[in-house]
């Protein structure tokens, strides 16, 4: 008897929860908002229930991880899964309707939008969360290399044997290359930008050392004035005393050049979600709200750059438009 009462109670609560999720105010609303722009309503993570499924870019992964950590620290008790399977893989699953949120280090393609719209019955919303600047580094002992062009970069990481093969005024010393392994997204991005997706030039280069462990690369590069390599900005940032980031075409990777989109190896970091998911799953709306309100608290520590303020506001506006009447 007791059991059936409990069961009825459970059914009632469930029915109530469904009714509430399809309309009415979000249950997690809080008077205090973390949003520095004062656009988004406040989130009380302790009142957020339900799980969140995200997947995609390995570049976005550490950022999402840091925000999630904060979300959990402030009281969220559900499960957030963050799969790191690459932007393409994440958007493919998004197209099949399997995800709440897709992470991507490139813009969504028209064909992917089409599939997602068909699966969810609602258009994907693009949410810009930050920017990564891939850093090409030499040792701080290196006295000659300061700036390279993209064409020189292609030579440095392929068939040039000596530095003098790249630029005649540079010493006739062998180039020692330290690059991320072929499993990494950074490797993929670099070959895409510099070698138009061809792996042969870079993998055929002499004196090539590869590692999935960026600290191995940092140690190798910092150890010789004739060494060169690349990785996410985060690792350069952490080892500034030992490394020097080359400017590319005269553009130094920093906040300004990243904001102005003049640094050629800067890439936007995105999340994609549909308006329907935001409304059907209040926990996802809460997570995106929390993400946008707090991302700039952690992004520099993770090693990326804050998204341009206008883009962040645009993402917040998109959230507000999609959830009208719920806050």
């Amino acid at each position: 008897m007791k059991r059936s009462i409990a069961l009825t109670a459970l059914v009632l609560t469930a029915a109530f929860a469904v009714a509430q999720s399809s309309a009415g105010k979000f249950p997690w609303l809080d008077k205090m908002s973390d949003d520095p722009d004062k656009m988004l309503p406040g989130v009380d993570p302790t009142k957020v229930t339900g799980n969140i499924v995200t997947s995609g870019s390995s570049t976005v992964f550490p950022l999402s991880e840091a925000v999630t950590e904060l979300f959990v620290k402030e009281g969220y008790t559900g499960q957030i899964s963050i799969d790191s399977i690459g932007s393409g893989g994440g958007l493919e699953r998004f197209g099949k309707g399997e995800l709440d949120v897709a992470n991507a280090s490139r813009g969504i393609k028209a064909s992917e939008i089409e599939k997602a719209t068909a699966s969810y019955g609602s258009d994907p919303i693009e949410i810009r969360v930050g920017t990564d600047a891939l850093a090409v580094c030499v040792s701080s002992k290196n006295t000659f290399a300061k700036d390279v062009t993209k064409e020189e970069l292609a030579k440095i990481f392929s068939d040039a044997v000596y530095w003098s093969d790249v630029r005649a005024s540079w010493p006739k010393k062998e180039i020692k290359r330290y690059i991320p392994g072929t499993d990494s997204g950074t490797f993929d991005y670099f070959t895409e930008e510099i070698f138009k997706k061809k792996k042969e030039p870079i993998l055929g280069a002499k004196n090539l050392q590869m590692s999935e462990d960026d600290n191995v690369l940092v140690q190798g590069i910092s150890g010789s004035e004739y060494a060169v390599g690349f990785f996410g900005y985060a690792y350069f940032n952490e080892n500034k005393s030992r490394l020097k980031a080359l400017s590319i075409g005269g553009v130094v990777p920093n906040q300004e050049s990243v904001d102005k989109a003049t640094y050629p190896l800067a890439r936007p970091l995105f999340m994609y979600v549909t308006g329907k998911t935001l409304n059907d799953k209040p926990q996802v709306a809460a997570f995106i709200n929390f993400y946008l309100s707090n991302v700039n608290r952690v992004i520099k520590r993770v090693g990326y750059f804050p998204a341009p303020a206008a883009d962040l506001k645009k993402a917040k506006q998109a959230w507000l438009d999609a959830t009208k009447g719920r806050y």
Partner: protein
Amino acid sequence: MGTALAGKKRPGEMMVQLFLLFAAGVSVLTTLGIVVTLGKESFLFFREVSPIEFLTARKWQPQIEEFGILPLFTATVVTSLIAMMIALPAGLASAVWLSEYAPEKARSVIKPILEILAGIPSVVYGFFALQSVTPALRNVFGGERVDVYNTMSAGIVMGVLILPLISSMCEDALSSVPHSMREGAYALGATKIEVSLNIVMPAAFSGLAAAFIVGFSRAIGETMIVALAAGAGPNLTLNPFRAAETMTGHIVRISGGDLSYDSIDYNSLFAIGLLLFLITLGLNMLSSRLVRKYREVY
């Protein structure tokens, strides 16, 4: 009474025997399992890549279909030879001293200490190579001549790692030479060094040779030191100051990433494994043949 007992069934003893048989069986079956797996996966590899290309091409980069084992093989040989150049003289000398010169008291203290060296995890040795030996080499020979990752430092430290093994095996071989031979030589007026070098060492030759070969095959299979200190990219070079990746180091690095099964890269690891297995098997067989051929029976 004795015969009556022999005929009696003793279930306890049967159990013990069965357990011993089982223990022996497990190790034999494990070996068989390894051979079968290695063979099967490398068969898949050699269906795509000819063994001739595998053994003779000069570049290893499976992602772009370069399958020449030579750069990995030479790095393995270079590091192992450097290790042997350290471990052989030092191991043999310490064995001669321990067996011929050391007073019993010193021996009983020093031998266990030497064996402690063998108990240090090899990853610690690897770190030592990278953090202490490499900087020292770079100080002596110049930072531009010596790479941050180089086969020399890995080889030297590997030599230290296998030194106790060689020393201990050599010492066993030398000690088992009967005292009557030494005494005979002394009686003829030989000095201590003459006895050690001309009588005891030749008599123990088979044991010494076996020790060298076992040490060498240990060096070839050693992994953590070379993975940490020798380099992380295949590089065909005999220069010990340059970075190069050994067969074992390559397997560690590639299998550490998320490699997809059924890819040629994945199978290529088994081909490397098979080659390593064949090399060490060959060396071990050589060593047991040497022991049999040159064994002096007293």
